[in-house]
């Protein structure tokens, strides 16, 4: 029951808010925050009580929800970030609408359902709703074509990957797992299991914006910052990682899955980190960084380090949502999120500057902040893994950490750089929105809470137990090495920040989107148009063509020249008309011609009959 409340309350309130229209707008923000607090309370209760529900969904297919160790962490994380984000959003004037609050709640419900689902079917349901909610939230400013385009890209890309889950469900059924329960999936029969795993992996990579799907996250940055903070840092993108962590036993049951996933994670960590360095738009930088950081979770999942992955997830959630919210606050206040335009912003809004610094340093992996611990835990798990390429993965991971330090510090350098003496009026043209010049008071508390989390969550392994105390813990030397790498590259980054190159390829996120458009979208559109033309011209006119041929024959027959068939009715009708004309020709009105035709008819018939008799 508790679980139904946990999912149902935000869902229902969200739907009602989203559909009621503008009448509820004045109340929306408060209602949203209130419900999110309720959700937090319910989440905490759920963690304590650990409820389990299970019901039939389809014939033999179960729909179950449960809170266990892994989901407990996620439920609380989601709830906390939700509260923080909604409180923050309450400060933003154009987000104080029923639509926004409602969609956020719907999204949260879907996320909560995703992480508590115990079966593939309910997971897929929640998973897809999450995608749709993200579409609506990214495209919140629906008059902005870029936002809408970003929303489309995000939804369609993730849905493409989601097809993997549909296939996985079918494969599971075919493999003998009729109930589609997650914990029984590894028992699927061999051939189908491979398909199952492949489907799950693709879906997870897509949702988590891993290579090669990362590009959608770039477009998604056109959405409001709180959306980015909730969806594109803490929750939705992490869902893919969550899925792989959750299905770790399944990955383990197929030999190639673990290494593949691990390498994709590592590659994303490094590759998207490099892309982040090339970004000069703060949100784009953060987005690329998100891909990279989630790469570590994926890496952890690939090497079987569930605990490490969860730790990274939680730490990253706090850190990144903090950073996004800060970026959003600046965007509101200053009207820009370009690093160049943010000069002096940290000095102008000291609180923002402080929390942003905490977050960025955590992101850079500077000890003793949370991501330093988390990342090292992941790397430790990597080293401990039996995979033959463990060392290589470790090195790539470490390189990724170095890159992370560079871009984090680069961003810090820009925001702390002294402001130009006076803002140029012409610079207004470059602004992305009207600056308000102030940061609402409401934004403070959530940022502080998140900053505390970003700084302190690294202690979790010391306090926690079970999942939160991942084995193996990083060796002391590992911690030292990574700290050294982080600090040194950070120092280099601080000095080189202004001079860091922005190669076009990296700036454009490795041209992944262009590739997708070139390889997938355009061919499909072409195909669609061709088929439509085919449909109109060929299928529909197939009969028409026969008709035209018949008309030709009719003309040939009729030397006097029949008037062309006027095509009021196309297709069959045309042909039939032509035939009809032809069939009327015997009816000349001349009796002697009737006689002649009838005689010939009967003679032919009689001859035919006799021939049949003689031949037979």
């Amino acid at each position: 029951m508790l679980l139904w409340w946990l999912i149902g309350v935000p869902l229902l309130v969200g739907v009602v808010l989203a559909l009621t229209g503008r009448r509820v707008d004045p109340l929306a923000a408060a209602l949203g925050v209130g419900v999110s607090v309720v959700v937090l309370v319910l989440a905490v209760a759920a963690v304590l009580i650990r409820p389990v529900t299970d019901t039939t969904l389809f014939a033999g297919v179960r729909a179950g929800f449960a809170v266990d160790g892994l989901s407990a962490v996620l439920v609380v994380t989601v709830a906390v970030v939700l509260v923080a984000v909604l409180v923050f959003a309450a400060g933003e004037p154009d987000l104080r609408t029923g639509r926004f609050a409602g969609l956020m709640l719907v999204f949260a419900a879907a996320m909560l359902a995703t992480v508590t689902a115990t079966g593939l079917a309910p997971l897929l349901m929640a998973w897809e709703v999450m995608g749709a909610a993200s579409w609506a939230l990214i495209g919140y400013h629906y008059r902005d074509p870029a936002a809408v385009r970003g929303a489309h890209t995000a939804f369609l890309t993730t849905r493409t990957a989601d097809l993997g889950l549909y296939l996985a469900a079918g494969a599971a059924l075919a493999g003998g797992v009729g109930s589609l329960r997650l914990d029984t999936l590894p028992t699927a029969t061999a051939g189908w299991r491979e398909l199952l795993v492949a489907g799950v992996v693709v879906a997870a990579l897509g949702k988590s914006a891993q290579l090669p799907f990362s590009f959608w996250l770039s477009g998604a940055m056109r959405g409001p910052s709180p959306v980015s903070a909730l969806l594109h840092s803490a929750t939705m993108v992490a869902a893919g990682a969550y899925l792989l962590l959750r299905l770790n036993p399944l990955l383990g049951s197929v030999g190639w899955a673990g290494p593949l996933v691990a390498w994709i994670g590592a590659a994303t960590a490094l590759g998207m980190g490099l892309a982040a360095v090339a970004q000069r738009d703060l949100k784009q930088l953060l987005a690329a960084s998100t891909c990279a950081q989630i790469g570590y979770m994926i890496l952890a999942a690939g090497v079987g380090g569930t605990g490490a992955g969860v730790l990274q997830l939680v730490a990253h959630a706090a850190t990144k949502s903090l950073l996004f919210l800060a970026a959003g606050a600046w965007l509101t206040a200053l009207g820009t999120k370009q690093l160049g335009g943010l000069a002096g912003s940290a000095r102008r809004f000291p609180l923002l500057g402080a929390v942003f610094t905490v977050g960025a340093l955590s992101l850079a992996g500077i000890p003793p902040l949370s991501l330093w611990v988390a990342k090292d835990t992941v790397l430790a798990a990597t080293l401990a893994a039996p995979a033959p390429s463990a060392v290589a993965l470790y090195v790539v991971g470490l390189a990724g950490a170095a890159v992370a330090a560079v871009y984090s510090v680069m961003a810090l350098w820009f925001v702390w750089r002294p402001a130009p003496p006076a803002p140029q009026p012409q610079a207004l043209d470059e602004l992305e929105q009207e600056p308000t010049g102030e940061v609402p008071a409401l934004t403070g508390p959530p940022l502080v809470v998140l900053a505390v989390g970003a700084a302190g969550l690294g202690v979790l392994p010391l306090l926690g137990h079970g999942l939160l105390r991942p084995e193996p813990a990083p060796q002391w030397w590992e911690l030292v090495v990574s700290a050294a790498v982080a600090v040194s590259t950070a120092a280099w980054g601080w000095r080189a920040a202004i001079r860091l190159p922005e190669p076009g390829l990296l700036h454009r996120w490795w041209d992944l989107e262009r590739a997708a458009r070139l390889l997938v979208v355009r061919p499909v559109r072409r195909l669609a148009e061709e088929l439509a033309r085919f449909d109109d011209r060929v299928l529909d006119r197939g009969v028409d063509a026969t008709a035209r041929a018949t008309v030709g024959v009719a003309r040939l027959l009729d030397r006097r020249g029949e008037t062309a068939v006027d095509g009021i009715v196309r297709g069959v009708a045309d042909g039939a008309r032509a035939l009809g004309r032809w069939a009327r020709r015997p009816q000349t009105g001349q009796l002697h011609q009737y006689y002649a035709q009838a005689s010939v008819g009967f003679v032919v018939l009689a001859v035919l009959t006799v021939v049949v008799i003689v031949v037979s």
Partner: protein
Amino acid sequence: MLSLIVFLPAAVAVVLAPLPARLPGHVFVGAWIAAALADLALIVTAWVRLPAAGVGPGGFAFEVRLPWIPSVGISYHLGVDGLSLPLLAMTAVLFLACGVFALRETRRVKPFVLFFLALQTVSLGLFAALDLILFFLFFDLSIVFMYFVIAGWGHAERARSAALKFFLYTFLGSLALLLGFILLFLAATPHTFDIVELAAANPLAAGGPYAALTLLAIGVGLAVKTPTVPFHTWLPPAHTEAPATGSAILAGVLLKMGTYGFVRIAMPLLPTSWRQYALVVLVVGAVSVVYGALVALAQANLKRMVAYTSINHMGYVLVGIGAAGLVAAGDAQARTLATTGALVQMVSHGLITGALFLLAGVLYDRGRTYELDSYSGLAARTPRFAALFAVAAFASLGLPGFSGFIAEFQIFTGSLPAAPIPVAIAVTGILVTAALFLVALQRLFLGPLRLPDAPGTPRAFTDLRAAELVAIAPLLALATLIGLAPRFLLELVEPAAAAVNTLVAR
């Protein structure tokens, strides 16, 4: 009881017929709404009482069987089971919605209402019929009445030719169907047209070319009505030219007659051949799915687009029932899922596409065109319309939480074991549908506001009126209900689907 359900609208039509046409339209529409409500109430009663009727799997409830032409084995035989009852309910709901929607109809209201009442009777009758000839009777009459609706109340002169095409094409299909029925009739000893008896006797159990021809005739007949690629070309013009309510009924109810025919007639009565050619059905379904979706993507006309998505959605149904015939490949649970999914898809498509066509009608009413390019940014001007349309679009693209997902998920998971590659290809259909609906939403509602300024657009571009809202919202609400809590429907459908599969597997 069933006879009452089926013939109540016709009876109302008979009562209305002598009234002078000069009476205000509300009188007629009101009577229609009342009839539809009463019918719906009766069907709900039947639904509730169905468990009490104590019918085993494969059995029928509320059966009525009267000799009609006993010397040739034709009887007036009605009955419902889990296959037909949901469709009956869907039909009643859709007609009710259309009735409410038609409150704004001003053109020749009396015959309009009479035709719809007649259509309602034949639709309900078809889904309750347990005799091939009775089935054919309703099948054929549905074409006749729909012809008059399209020709009489469609858009301008082109409607006439679209209606003609519709009539000729589907009539050809119906006659192919009749040929198939005759072949079935002749195969059975004693000769009979009774579906239940034929299913029990399984006269063509041996298969062979005769049975294959029978299946071909029936299959083509139903495929035209469904329609599947390549028999679909009547559908887009018919939809484009039909009035909104006509389109809703055409897509929502009449298309189901084809797919329902497959599960009610082709599968149980020709199991051997069905198994033999199930892969063909499945592939035709998969092709329809992908083809319909892709062609819809390229459309610039909203109604044509929705029409093509209907081809796509009906393709899923074929995939599901095709998989059910691949007995050797899938286990019983998978096949039940596939068949159940196909049945749910019928109900779901009826509700969702009905809503979409009614919404398209609203658009036409305001802007006098279906061209997507003529509109932009309507979300600001008409938020309620935009919201409902968005919901309908997402429901149609198979988003979880709506009935479409419940159907499609079951179809995919249930069919994949049977034929992985065609089904995997078919799955991409949901992606293309997603793309096309997003594009449509974007063109219509997002971006800067732009309205068509053709001379035929006299009135202000208003948001949904109360009647329109009351007509459309319940359809989507039902689709959502099925999407979130499908058990009430599945409890009914699953045993029936399993029973059909048992018949197919013998």
